[in-house]
Each structure stands twice: as structure tokens, then as C-alpha cells.
């Protein structure tokens, strides 16, 4: 299948390993990524808090770009997924729609509302299918216990996100199982990572991240995996700060969703950008036999 690939800002910058892994996995599974260098940022929830109408208009433009190409838009970030879906929803309000349509006309664009916004997770499950993925696994992640960490905006608000089970999702766990790993269920998997206030009050954000990592660890997770690069920033790039804030040591490897898929499909650590992580993923790679047990 072919999709309009919406990498989002972070995967093109500090989270480039997510983009790398996405391209590798999609290449293997026949998901064709059409690129649109004219896509803008989704606003990440921050522009929404400064100017709601502007944020809807920016995303209406993004959706119109995919629509013009006749493609569904594929995100690789829970927050992008949330903001673009929310824009589709808010454009159902005639007052918002009028204002946004008027602005789009002035830049020669039209929003019709036919483009679906789909996260990579959804494309993997519904288009590729778990059976196909299972049949493509070359390196089963047997013995690896993985705690999925969904990221708020993939799930909530449930009505707008059309989540089948916002409070008790299972899609990510289903995928983890298909890769041969063992999913770990814990309360934190649907909680917040703290990222939205990382710049506002870092110690509080660090404490929130620590709560979720501790919870995953207490339930026996060897690693966590997330479909959101913002969660990844909070859980991986700031994990040392979270540890310092609560005076504990976690050493928890955190994978981006397509990195975990890539590992099972036979990718190398370098293909997936794993050396770019702040917390070493070696303990997890040792468990799946990708690197030798240190002597």
C-alpha cells in the first residue's frame, strides 16, 4: 500500500532513528512512503493552546496535501496522530470549517475531509496484518519482555480518536506478541510520559516519567517500546534525569515501535539507529541474541 508519509518534526531531527527504522520496516513490508516536503508541523498541542483555529488550519492544510494526492496520511508519532485527527474532528464544526476554508482558499487549497489519518501501528495491524508480520519474522524476540507505552494522543480523547479501547488497548501488545516477544501489562502503559511539561517544570516531568518506567520494570519489563518520539524523549533521552530525580536506577532500554519490528525482521542495530539512544539497548539485544553475552 502507498501512504502520504508524515514523519513529524522530531523524527526529522533529534529522533531521526525513528525515521530510519520506519523506512527500513516499510521497505521490508511493502508500505510505500510518498514524501511531501511541504508538510508543516502538527502544532504538537502547543499551538492549539495558543491559537486553536490556526492549529486546525495548519493541519487542514496538511490533510489537504495528502488529499490532493489521493492518499491516506501515515503518522509515526502519537501526538501528530492526535493533532491531525483532532483537526479532522474539529472541522466538523461549521463555524470552524467556514473560517478555515476561507483561509485555505487564499492559499489555493481545499479541504474535503476524505483523508484518513493512520498511525504506523494501525497500518501494520490492519493493512499488513499480524499473520504476514509473523511470517516475516527472521529473529523472533523470544524471551524479551516488552512494556508497550502508547502515548496519550494515540488513545485520548477516546471519542475523537475513535479508540476502540482507550483505557485498555491491546493493539500494540498484539504486535509485540507477533514479533515473538512477551508483552507486559502495567498501569503506566496508557499514562502520560511527562513530556508536555519538560520545558515548563522539568523535575515534575521527570517524576512522571520515572513513575511509568518504574511501573514497567516492577512488572518485569526488560525494555519499553513506544509509538511516540516525544514519549521516547522523555523516557530515553531524559531517563538519567528521571533516575536522579527519584534516586533510583532504571537502565531501561526504550525502543521506537518500528525499531522493535525491525529487530524481529532481521535489521541490524545500525539500520535502526539504536546507537543514537541515550540508554543503551545492549541488555535487550543480548536477550535476543543480537549481541554476545558479555563474558
Amino acid at each position: 500500500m502507498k501512504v502520504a508519509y508524515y514523519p513529524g518534526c522530531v523524527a526529522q531531527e533529534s529522533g531521526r532513528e525513528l525515521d530510519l527504522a520506519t523506512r527500513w520496516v516499510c521497505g521490508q513490508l511493502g508500505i510505500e512512503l510518498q514524501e511531501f516536503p511541504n508538510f508543516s508541523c502538527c502544532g504538537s498541542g502547543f499551538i492549539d493552546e495558543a491559537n486553536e483555529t490556526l492549529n486546525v488550519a495548519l493541519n487542514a492544510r496538511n490533510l489537504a496535501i495528502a488529499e490532493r494526492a489521493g492518499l491516506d496520511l501515515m503518522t509515526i508519532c502519537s501526538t501528530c496522530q492526535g493533532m491531525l485527527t483532532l483537526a479532522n474532528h474539529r472541522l466538523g464544526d461549521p463555524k470552524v470549517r467556514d473560517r478555515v476554508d476561507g483561509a485555505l482558499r487564499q492559499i489555493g487549497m481545499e479541504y474535503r475531509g476524505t483523508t484518513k489519518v493512520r498511525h504506523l501501528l494501525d497500518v501494520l495491524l490492519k493493512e499488513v496484518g499480524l499473520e504476514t508480520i509473523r511470517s516475516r519474522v527472521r529473529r523472533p524476540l523470544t524471551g524479551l519482555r516488552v512494556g508497550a507505552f502508547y502515548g496519550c494522543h494515540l488513545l485520548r480523547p477516546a471519542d475523537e480518536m475513535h479508540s476502540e479501547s482507550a483505557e485498555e488497548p491491546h493493539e500494540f501488545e498484539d504486535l509485540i506478541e507477533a514479533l515473538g516477544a512477551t508483552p507486559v501489562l502495567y498501569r503506566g502503559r496508557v499514562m502520560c510520559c511527562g513530556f508536555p511539561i519538560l520545558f515548563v517544570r522539568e523535575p515534575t516531568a521527570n517524576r512522571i516519567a520515572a513513575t511509568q518506567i518504574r511501573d514497567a520494570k516492577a512488572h518485569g519489563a526488560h525494555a519499553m517500546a513506544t509509538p511516540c518520539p516525544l514519549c521516547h524523549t522523555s523516557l530515553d533521552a531524559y531517563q538519567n534525569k528521571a533516575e536522579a530525580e527519584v534516586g533510583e536506577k532504571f537502565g531501561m532500554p526504550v525502543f521506537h515501535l518500528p525499531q522493535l519490528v525491525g529487530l524481529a525482521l532481521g535489521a541490524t542495530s545500525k539500520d535502526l539507529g539504536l546507537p543514537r539512544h541515550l540508554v543503551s539497548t545492549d541488555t535487550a539485544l543480548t536477550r535476543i541474541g543480537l549481541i554476545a553475552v558479555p563474558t
Partner: protein
Amino acid sequence: MPPELIQAPFEVYRYEPGVDPAPRYSHFTLELPPHTPVLTALLKIRDELDPSLTLRYSCRSAICGSCAMLVNSKSRLACKTQIGPEVARHGKIVIDPMRNLPVLRDLVTEMNGFWDRYRRLEPALRPNPDRPMPVGQPNPMTPEQVDRFMETPRCIACAACYSACPAVEADPEFPGPMALAKLYRFVVDPRDGAPRERLLKIQSEGLWLCLRCHLCTEACPKDVRPSERIRDLKEMANRARDPSEAGSRHSVAFKENIRSKGILDEFKLARQTLNPVQLLESLPQGFKIRAKKPEVTKTPKPIRNLEEVQKLYELLDSSGSEEEAP
């Protein structure tokens, strides 16, 4: 025809601080119709099996807001949650007291923290000199004015949102979802005389600690949608004055950041949001991240057709910061 009965295994949290050495769970299995409310089942346990079980309740009709607790770890009103779907999904029903509030005994929590954070926001109308309210006289509002309250008057102060909120858990300064939804209600009330003062004050009293995780909106049994009203408050607060709080600075800086390139300039955003001291303190972590991810300090290339994005800003964001300020 009598309804079909199901087996409902209950695990109920029991603890009295200072008396019991540690919390424990009591196990009961009841046979009841699937539509039985959890509260009815708990009262049956108390009346027939264990009279020492302590819980708070009153109306049994989702009006009084007394029986909020965790049902299979989700904040719920026990009277509004049926046992059938819980057993179907979890195979059992685990009952705990609400989170973020200290336990007095079993399922009864001490509510002072919840109310204290609420009272800090001065939740009462302040006289509006432009709109005197003589005693005994009606003070009519237009339907449009009433619409602006949205769903907030439905709130029954059950604290389910407070129990579900990770910001409440992590930071004592955060007022909580219910308190902020109520604050919104006063800010848009045409009879209130101090909406702008309220918006200025809340900026330094925790508004920007909301994580917009929407867990409150999922927990709310009355569909008040607190997270959406907090979003509205943030937008109004941003419009009410030049940003000076870090949270406000961050969202406005983010907006301006995207105006200039269409894509986020991560390093610039940090410089725009953090004050000089914070920026200095963030340097060691910044260097650690940069060692692995050198893009962090690189300026990204602008998106193609950036002028389209800038035109949208011009059309929708040029009318000045006072637009729609209350």
C-alpha cells in the same frame, strides 16, 4: 423471566492506617445479574458478608458524587459502573480507594487535599460592577452566554478526575482537573467581575502543569471534559497578556517557531522557553543528548511552500493577542 446471573469475584481493598499492619484484599464471590451496579454489590457484601467493610455513598444515582473509587484500576462512580462488562473484560472486579488521596479506612479517602486545591482558585462569583445583582431580582443570561459554560455545570465534584490525574500525583501545585474546569466556568460567566484577574493569577498557580493527557476526560462520569476546558483556559490566558510564565512562553514560542520555518527548530525552542538560568542548567543534559543526536542543535531547513503556512498565520493569527479576551 428473571435475568441471567453471573459469578462476580470481588477483591476489595481493606486498610485502616494505624490499626492494620498493611493493606490487604478481601475476596468475595457474588452471583448477580450483569447489570448490577458495583455499589449495589459492595453494599450486599457489607450487609450480608462483612459488616466491617467501609465505604462512602449516598444517592446511588450518579448525582451526589460520593462513591468514586477504582474499579479494576480505573476511577469510576461505583453506582454508575455495572459488574457485567468488568467481569467480562477482567474476569474479576478489583476495588481500590481513589488515588492521590490518603485512605481513612478501606474505600473512604480523606478529601481535604482535593477541596484545598479547589478553594485556592476562589470558586465563587466576584461582584461585577457593570452587572449588579440586586437581591431578589433575576439576572438573566442569553442562550449564547449559557452555551459558553459548556458541560462544566454538570460537575458533581466526585474527584474521579483528581484520582486519575498524573499531574496531581506528581506536583502539589497543580490544582487538579475539576478545579480548573470550575475556574473556566467563572471566567466565562458574564456575572463575574474578575475574569482577567483569574486568568492572570492561575498562570502562576499551576495552569501550565496540565499535561493534556485527557485522563480526566476519560474518568469523568458526567462528561464534563475537564481537559478541553483547561485547553480553553490556556488559550484565554495566553490572549490575556504577554506571556511571562514558562508554560505560556512555551506555547507562544512554539507557535512563532513554526511560523518561521514550518518545522520545529528544537534548539531555538529551548532558547525561547527557558530563562537564562534554566538554559544554563540544561546545558549538561543538552551536551549529553547532542553527543548522540547531533541534529539537536542544527537549524532545520524550512519546509517547501513555507509562504502558505505564513499566509495562514497572517490570516488567522494577526488580529492581535487581545482577540476574544474575556
